[in-house]
């Protein structure tokens, strides 16, 4: 196994996770459950392809993709913050809605039940192994940037306070709602970038192309105990397991089903043995009265 190709592949696989997990960390630190990442990613991916298709520019695609994630994030935010709906319920619904909306509009805009046409995208230099994609580099720095935002800026301080003890934040004049809106919006945009990366790397949207990556990302958030850097390391770990899985497959010695299980089994083993009890932000998922 070539170590360089291993690492490059691991990074490429990790990028969507890194974006989505960073978004998950921000929202959860502010007290909003992030079961929504899958939906944000999927809507981002679709909106990116839509934007790129009609403008011809992948940069417009990035913007429209982020906008797509933002729209879904705002739906989530209004329902859970303004109307105090149960965050888990709405989270599940956001994912269903994203699947439904992308399918419906795939049909409406592209008359297909499964694929969009090919659009412009990033990368393509055959010697760069995908590293000529600006989104890939953005994905690499997103975790440190979010760590900085969360630990070194007033916004981050407010996010942490609001997720831990919203009444305390409110009592000193911090608007809990405003901070949460901002955090959810940010999480929607970040997770959407994960989807945008997938779509523009593929130059195409495919029905449900995120294929459960949002759930892996939320696992990484919990695995990383709500810390951006540790969550990013968890993303890399999952990606490494997946890379291993790809590189081990093909010899028929072990049935592919068992190799397929490796990343998931790894998570469970690690949870049981290594990580142990994870203590979430105290106000996570709590509806304020």
């Amino acid at each position: 196994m070539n170590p360089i190709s291993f690492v490059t592949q691991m990074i490429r696989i990790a990028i969507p996770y890194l974006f989505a997990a960073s978004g998950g960390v921000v929202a959860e630190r502010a007290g909003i459950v992030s079961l929504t990442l899958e939906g944000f990613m999927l809507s981002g991916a679709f909106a990116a392809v839509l934007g790129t298709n009609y403008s011809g520019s992948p940069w417009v695609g990035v913007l429209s993709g982020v906008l797509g994630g933002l729209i879904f994030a705002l739906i989530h935010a209004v329902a859970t913050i303004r109307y105090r709906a149960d965050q888990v319920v709405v989270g599940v619904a956001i994912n269903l809605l994203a699947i439904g909306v992308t399918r419906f509009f795939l049909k409406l805009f592209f008359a297909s039940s499964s694929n969009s046409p090919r659009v412009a995208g990033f990368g393509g230099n055959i010697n760069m192994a995908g590293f000529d994609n600006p989104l890939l580099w953005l994905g690499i720095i997103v975790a440190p940037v979010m760590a900085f935002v969360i630990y070194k800026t007033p916004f981050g301080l407010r996010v942490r306070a609001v997720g831990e003890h919203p009444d305390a934040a409110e009592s000193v004049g911090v608007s809990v709602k405003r901070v949460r809106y901002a955090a959810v919006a940010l999480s929607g945009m970040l997770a959407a970038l994960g989807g945008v990366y997938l779509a523009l790397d593929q130059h195409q949207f495919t029905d449900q192309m995120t294929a459960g990556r949002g759930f892996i990302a939320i696992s990484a958030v919990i695995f990383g105990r709500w810390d951006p850097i540790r969550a990013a390391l968890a993303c890399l770990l999952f990606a490494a397991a997946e890379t291993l899985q790809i590189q081990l497959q093909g010899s028929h010695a072990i049935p592919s089903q068992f190799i397929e299980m490796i990343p998931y089994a790894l998570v469970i083993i690690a949870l049981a043995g290594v990580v142990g009890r994870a203590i979430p932000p105290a106000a996570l998922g709590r509806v304020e009265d």
Partner: protein
Amino acid sequence: MISGAAPKSASVVPAIRMDGIDKSFGAIRANRGASVEVMPGEIHALVGENGAGKSTLMRILGGLMKPDSGHVEVNGRDVTGWSTNEAIAAGIGIVHQHFMLVPTLSVAENLVLGAEPKTRGIVLDYKHAADDVRKLSNETGLVIAPERLISDLSVGEAQRVEILKVLFRGARILVLDEPTAVLSPPEVRELWTVLRRLRDKGDTIVLITHRLDEVVEISNTITVMRAGQTVARVKTSATTPAEIARLMVGREVSLSAGKRVQPSGRPTGPPDKGLEARSLIVMGSRGIRVIDGVSFTVRPGEIFGIAGVEGNGQTELIEALAGLRPVFAGEILIDGADITRRSVAQRHDAGLSHIPEDRQRRGLILEYTVANNLILGVQKHFSSRGIIDSTRVMENAMQEISSFDIRPPNPVLTARSLSGGNQQKVVVAREMGREFSVLLASQPTRGVDVGAIEFIHQQLLDARAQGKAILLVSAELNEVLALSDRVAVMYRGKFAVVMPAAEASEEVLGEYMIGTKKGNTA
């Protein structure tokens, strides 16, 4: 004297003037035409029974709630319905009844939250924040290291941070909602010093407390609330605790629940019965010994009181005895049977009953009805073949509601909808209503009004008379002194002293509590 209207003072503009405040939560009218007037530079006490509407009135002042009707004036300016931020900007600072500190953040972070100093536009300037904290500490005498985590602080220290927090925002009008409920006597004295210093500097202070002796000691003026109304405004120098209590409750109350003379020569039970702890060691969350080799016995018919500054191991001791915290070494015996390794349920069966210190977190399922809360822990006895007998559950509830005067007397209300005092009565009713031989009573009257305190004290004394062994832990020194046969003081996980209550006094115990005196633990 019993008139809601405050005397008009023409010369000085009141710091706070609230007039005809109404505030309802659904069917509950928390404030109904309440009026207060607080003069600048005074310490003003706001007293009243549980649920009288004190906290609500102050939340309206602080902009956390908007009144349904009425006017709020601060320094002569009409500020009715303002926001938290406006109130903070105008110099109102509220130290809430429940701590408003983020436990996972540092002292400095909590202080600057909402008013963060920045460098380069976006970056939080921690150094600046820490310097500000140190400066303020020095000015006020409220010393605390800025980089410590709130979760590592003692209650007294957290209280200090709360006051620093409002001062940091430039508050000149301070509202303290039951600040002393969790403080030890030395800490209370320290708080008084700070408050007096602030008053002398010209700040205005509103103090909410249930301890009438404190009111008399520290305040200049008193406003009494009852059932959402302000029923009296008196000069402290012109009144007595008994008078205030009568105003609060609307009838005569005995303030001497415990001060009765201990019956001498009362037979205590056999020495092998009751509760016994032998060289108990309990580890805390950070791997240190929070209980460090404590031994004691509580005989049947005896109340054994434990005093101490909060955070010296009382909570952990009770939890270990109740089976909620593992014991590292040592033994616990109930009526001679070793229960050290037994589960909570098995301890119940062995005769243990437990009034927990935090009724909301431990004592009640807030979403359950009163009736269902009254069978928590004994649900086994209210069911046959796995099915709960709802008739018996209701009968039990009706009986406990009437004998403990739980109000409103409706067994199918949720526990959440009761006031704090009535919630506590539910817990006490349940724990004392079951078969037991040993009772752990932890802070049984915390935050409960005088009428209810009197009642709960009587229940404890009755239980003693019936030969129960009672371990009482309380932050109220006078409560411990009044009820106990013997008292111990906990200091850093050990008993600093054990002595007959008759020989003890607040002064003596106070010295053991702060560690200046160490004695024998016989």
